[in-house]
């Protein structure tokens, strides 16, 4: 019997010939990422009684959750982090200017194919877009990793998704992954490694793959991956990075579940409150009045996303009752979006440009919802009260659906906006 991506990679990391699902292995990560919660990691690290981190060159800290600091508490936490990275010689520190941690990690080549990447953030699964094994852990566990350079992992079972066909107009990888989360449910992949395969994935660029691996977390995935291929290699050449190690799953690998879907038959999808698996085709929720739209985040804040939205909105006016917030996922993307004119078009139409970072996604600042307000967002979570008031509602969709809806003031099928 062959091996899955996770089995091959974790066997290599554990220094074993072969590992099986359920087995506990010990491994040393290739990279360990923490964002603003590095503050909590530092506090826990200091309690262990070790003076120096195991390897400062393997720790990456981008500040993104509350940037620039929205309160004195956050400002002091950021200050402590800046002092700590200097004292420990951690050079891969990205201050408030750079963008969402996951985007920065991929963009700056901190994760390469075959890497075991840990992050104190659940959406660390995103790194599968460049064929790395990314998984989220808590701050205390990260403190232990900083001290020892090791952690234990249970080898996960794997789920294989095969996506065939070509995407119809106005249908995107976001719609595919929302559809899959709807089909598998929010714990459908709990503890599992999710592999994406098939012609629709092979034809997909890194941004689309990023969206798939990011949202796979919302079905509980431990990691998600698009195995290394030519697209991965071309992307890495483009950013001047090395190619890492390709761990390719065997054709006869064993999966606990296989999903097959044809994206050519897919309609734009919307995840309705208050669960990411409450997914319906856009036609079924079209007409729902909205107060705010958010275009951005680590899920869908890349240049392709901003361009899709700008093309729909260009030359038109955003509905007067809607606040449209645009949050590029990184400074690099913001610069690109300024150069290509996407930002110009969006702001001219009435959008509010927010600095690269997590923005309002987690309800911390920069666009909190009031009582009973409704938001349509290209982000990844619609938990009850996620973006503010506990009586507010968040719907999730693709950048195209978000842009089309910003024009009409209600959830709108992007295929119907001319």
């Amino acid at each position, binding site marked *: 019997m062959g091996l899955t991506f996770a089995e091959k990679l974790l066997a290599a990391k554990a220094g074993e010939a072969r590992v099986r699902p359920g087995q506990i292995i010990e491994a040393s990560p290739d990279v360990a990422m923490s964002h603003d*919660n590095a503050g909590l990691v530092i506090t826990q690290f200091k309690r262990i009684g070790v003076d120096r981190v195991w390897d400062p060159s393997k720790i990456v800290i981008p500040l993104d959750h509350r940037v620039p600091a929205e309160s004195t508490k956050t400002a002091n936490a950021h200050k402590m982090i800046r002092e700590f990275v200097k004292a420990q010689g951690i050079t891969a520190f990205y201050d408030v200017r750079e963008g969402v941690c996951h985007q920065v990690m991929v963009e700056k080549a901190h994760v390469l194919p075959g890497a075991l990447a840990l992050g104190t953030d*659940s959406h660390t699964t995103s790194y599968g877009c460049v064929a790395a094994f990314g998984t989220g*852990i808590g701050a205390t*566990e990260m403190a232990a990793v900083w001290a*020892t350079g090791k952690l234990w992992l249970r080898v996960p079972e794997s789920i294989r998704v095969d996506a065939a066909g070509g995407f119809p107009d106005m249908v995107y990888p976001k719609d595919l992954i929302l559809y899959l989360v709807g089909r598998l449910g929010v714990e459908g992949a709990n503890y599992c490694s999710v592999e994406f395969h098939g012609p629709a994935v092979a034809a997909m660029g890194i941004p689309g793959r990023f969206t798939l691996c990011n949202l796979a977390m919302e079905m509980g995935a431990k990691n998600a991956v698009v195995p290394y291929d030519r697209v991965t290699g071309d992307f890495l050449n483009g950013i001047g990075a090395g190619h890492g190690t390709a761990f390719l799953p065997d054709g006869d690998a064993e999966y606990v579940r296989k999903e097959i879907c044809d994206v050519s038959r897919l309609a734009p999808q919307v995840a309705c409150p208050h669960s990411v698996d409450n997914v319906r085709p856009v036609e079924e929720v079209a007409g729902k009045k909205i107060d705010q739209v958010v275009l951005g985040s680590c899920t869908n804040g890349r240049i392709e996303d901003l361009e899709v939205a700008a093309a729909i909105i260009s030359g038109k006016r955003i509905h007067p009752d809607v606040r449209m917030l645009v949050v590029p996922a990184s400074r690099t993307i913001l610069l690109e979006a300024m150069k290509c004119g996407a930002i110009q078009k969006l702001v001219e139409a009435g959008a509010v440009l927010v600095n690269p970072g997590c923005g309002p996604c*987690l309800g911390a600042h920069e666009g909190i919802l009031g009582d009973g307000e409704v938001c349509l967002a290209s982000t990844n979570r619609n*938990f009850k009260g996620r973006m503010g008031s506990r009586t507010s509602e968040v719907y999730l969709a693709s950048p195209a659906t978000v842009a089309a809806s910003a024009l009409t003031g209600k959830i709108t099928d992007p295929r119907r906006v001319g």
Partner: protein
Amino acid sequence: MKFKGKAWVAGDDIDTDQIYHGQYLPLTDPHEMAKHAMEYVPGMDNFPREAKKGDIVVAGKNFGTGSSREHAVLCLQYLGVSCVVAQSFSRIFFRNAVNLGYPVIECPGIAGRVKTGDVIEVDDESGLVTSVATGASVQGVPPSGLEKEIAGSGGLLEFLKKKSPEELAQL
């Protein structure tokens, strides 16, 4: 260890924003953090004020789904909730609880067997959950070897602190 306390029953898929909302992440004072435990769970607004030390949360499937924030474990710990019993847990929440030395008991058969206000007894070593009133019990999943070792030390930091510098260097 055995825990005896009043049960608070919550539903399925209770996410980390419901357990501890993102707006409170900068808080570090345990007393302040405890005040917001389970605040966004529908129908449990009174929980942070009325839950007593030693009470137990009994939840449905996929408890703690969502963010990797440890605050979701810490707020319950700081409030004095002795343990959480759930039909199933989300991966990162479960791992965080073990690492923080907080007892969590997976008990697939618990659904519909306990209601809010029932006094129950939970044995975190055997995984047995018993209703004090009726004596009826449901067998949960006992912790695995490594979980037991970390939890028995009182959490991952204590587990590491017990090791000598030489042992730490060996890790």
